[in-house]
């Protein structure tokens, strides 16, 4: 099929009223959880995983994608009005966005944030459409050694880009790889680490593990402190940026889009990294760097565009190589698996309806988000008044319900609780959940490609270094592993998006 027939196919999928409805539900929920501090896209998508199991796969992935990029729109609202980042990606927006609100310019800040997000999101979707198919075609040449090397590189990158210690990130990724090996070994038909508990034969459930690490751990952490903030401008009447605002924001939006897109392509390329990179660039190229932090619209336009471009680009490695780039993409990876779809080079070829349908939904979703985030801003501000004491019991309950209803198993609830406590302790001891989740989810692929590579080479580990693509990937992974020991780890880069 040629390019245009693929696009036509995508739009024929999204004009289906059911898919359109789920696209709307996704972006609506995304904006909502973006607005509400204390509930992130990771936890929300995890909560919905059991539900997606019951839906048509295309509708559920359209909805899940909508939550992911929708949260980026909503996150800026709390940063600007409340000085509390609704999402970790919007931390940097607090700097100038909140200052603009204090100066009575919340409207233009919210407006440029929504327009910038729309422009960046649309361009990123265009990039996804153009880059993904040839990349998937290229990845079809990958054999087991290349796949293994790619997975090793992806885990290294996630740990490298994390805000904390790289070694801790790698330790969590390795623990995740081990946890993924629990259950029946499909290669040898032998059970591993089951210890007589039959429910473990199928392995640890993805849903209870994710809900524990993201949902329960998040609630327990939030219960420790009370979230408070002062809304500076409850009404933002003049949302349309002035001509001068547009002039000041034009290039920051373009630069933010480009930076965000390329950061998003890299495994480990979370939204925070793209926003910090965009902010630094804007401050560096500005003729008035002293205005940054005091209400410069460029400091809002650039990062807000970057994180939306990043979220679109994040889908490229997932859909083409089967590599989730951060914790939330790992959860989306899980939702594809739950729906019987294998992310990777064959996804586009075998499921063109899904791939092109999701792309078309992103165009529509971004347009819906612009409408949701501009005229309806007052409604989102009102949501900010919902106390966490009401939200917390509901979220906790949905974690319990989500874990139980997938298999009607109390054992899954126990697994969820154990991982909830583990996630809580990990936060306390400064370990990130994203590498663990990633390792856990891709463990089967890692083991499969590793074992097949060894069988191909008659047990020689040099196979990973004798084939050009895997050799390059392994060397890059090795360099990334060694760099921090020489003090070369970038300090500014944020963590993967699992923090919320």
């Amino acid at each position: 099929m040629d390019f245009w027939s693929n696009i036509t196919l995508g739009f024929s999928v999204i004009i289906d009223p059911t898919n359109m409805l789920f696209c709307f539900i996704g972006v609506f929920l995304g904006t909502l959880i973006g607005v509400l501090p204390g509930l992130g896209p990771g936890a929300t998508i995890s909560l919905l995983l059991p539900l997606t199991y019951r839906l048509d796969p295309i509708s559920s992935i359209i909805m899940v994608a909508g939550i992911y990029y929708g949260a980026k729109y909503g996150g800026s609202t709390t940063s600007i009005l409340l000085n509390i980042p609704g999402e970790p990606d919007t931390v940097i927006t607090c700097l100038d966005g909140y200052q603009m609100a204090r100066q009575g310019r919340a409207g233009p800040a919210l407006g440029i944030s929504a327009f910038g997000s729309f422009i960046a999101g649309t361009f990123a979707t265009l990039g996804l459409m153009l880059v993904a198919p040839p990349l998937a075609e290229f990845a079809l040449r990958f054999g087991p050694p290349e796949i293994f090397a790619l997975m090793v590189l992806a885990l290294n990158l996630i740990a490298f880009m994390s805000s904390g210690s790289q070694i801790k990130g790698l330790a969590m990724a390795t623990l995740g790889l081990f946890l993924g090996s629990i259950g029946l070994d499909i290669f040898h038909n032998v059970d591993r680490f089951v210890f007589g508990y039959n429910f473990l034969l199928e392995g640890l459930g993805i849903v209870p593990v994710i809900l524990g690490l993201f949902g329960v751990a998040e609630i327990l952490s939030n219960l420790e402190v009370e979230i408070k903030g002062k809304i500076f401008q409850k009404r933002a009447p003049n949302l349309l940026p002035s001509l001068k605002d547009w002039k000041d924001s034009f290039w920051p939006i373009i630069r933010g889009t480009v930076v965000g897109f390329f950061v998003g392509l890299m495994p480990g390329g979370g939204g925070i990294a793209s926003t910090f990179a965009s902010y630094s660039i804007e401050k560096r190229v500005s003729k008035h760097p002293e205005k940054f932090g005091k209400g410069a619209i460029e400091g809002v336009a650039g990062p807000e565009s970057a994180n939306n471009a990043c979220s679109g680009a994040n889908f490229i490695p997932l859909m083409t190589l089967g590599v989730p780039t951060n914790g939330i993409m790992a959860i989306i990876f899980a939702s594809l698996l739950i729906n019987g779809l294998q992310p990777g080079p064959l996804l586009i070829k075998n499921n063109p309806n899904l791939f092109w349908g999701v792309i078309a939904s992103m165009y529509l979703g971004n347009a819906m988000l612009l409408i949701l985030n501009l005229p309806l801003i007052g409604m989102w501000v009102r949501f900010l008044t919902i106390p966490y004491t009401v939200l917390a019991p509901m979220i906790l309950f949905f974690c319990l319900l989500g874990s139980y209803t997938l298999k009607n198993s109390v054992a899954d609830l126990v697994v969820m609780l154990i991982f909830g406590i583990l996630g809580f302790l990990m936060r306390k001891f400064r370990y990130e959940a994203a590498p663990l989740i990633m390792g856990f989810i891709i463990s089967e692929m890692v083991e499969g490609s590793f074992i097949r590579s060894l069988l191909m080479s008659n047990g020689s580990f040099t196979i990973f270094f004798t084939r050009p693509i895997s050799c390059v990937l392994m060397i890059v992974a090795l360099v990334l592993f060694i760099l921090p020991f020489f003090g070369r780890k970038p300090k500014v880069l944020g963590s993967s998006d699992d923090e919320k």
Partner: protein
Amino acid sequence: MRKFDLISGLFLLVVSIGICVVSFQMEIGKPNAPSSGFYPLLTGGVLGLFSLIIIIQSRKQDEVSVRFWLPGANKKAILIAFVIILIYILLLERMGFLVTTVLFFILISRFVSGHSWKTVLVFSFLASVTTYIVFRFILRAPLPQGIFEGFL
């Protein structure tokens, strides 16, 4: 942070040793014919290596005072939430979804969120019945009936 890293590093080291010991009890095989214990053994070994690096790095760190709990932390709320989840898990299949869920919301809204009894009762009843109707009749999820088996 030094103490935290030391404790967590030691914990991970113990976990990695456990993984290796259990892996050795399985068939390991050889690199040219890896068996079921090969991959877990490898992950256990690599985890052990990383945990040793964490321990060594913790010894080199300057002692920075970091407390486990934040100042004014609501430890009681966390503990109560944990106990309530545990109660929910224990009672769900015995008492049934509806009764356990009402109890869950009552306990958590009152003792964790600190709402008034009037709010607690209204919120718990509405939340439980709404979710029951949505999951049981709209999403057709088979929820445990417990003591109401045959009535609902």
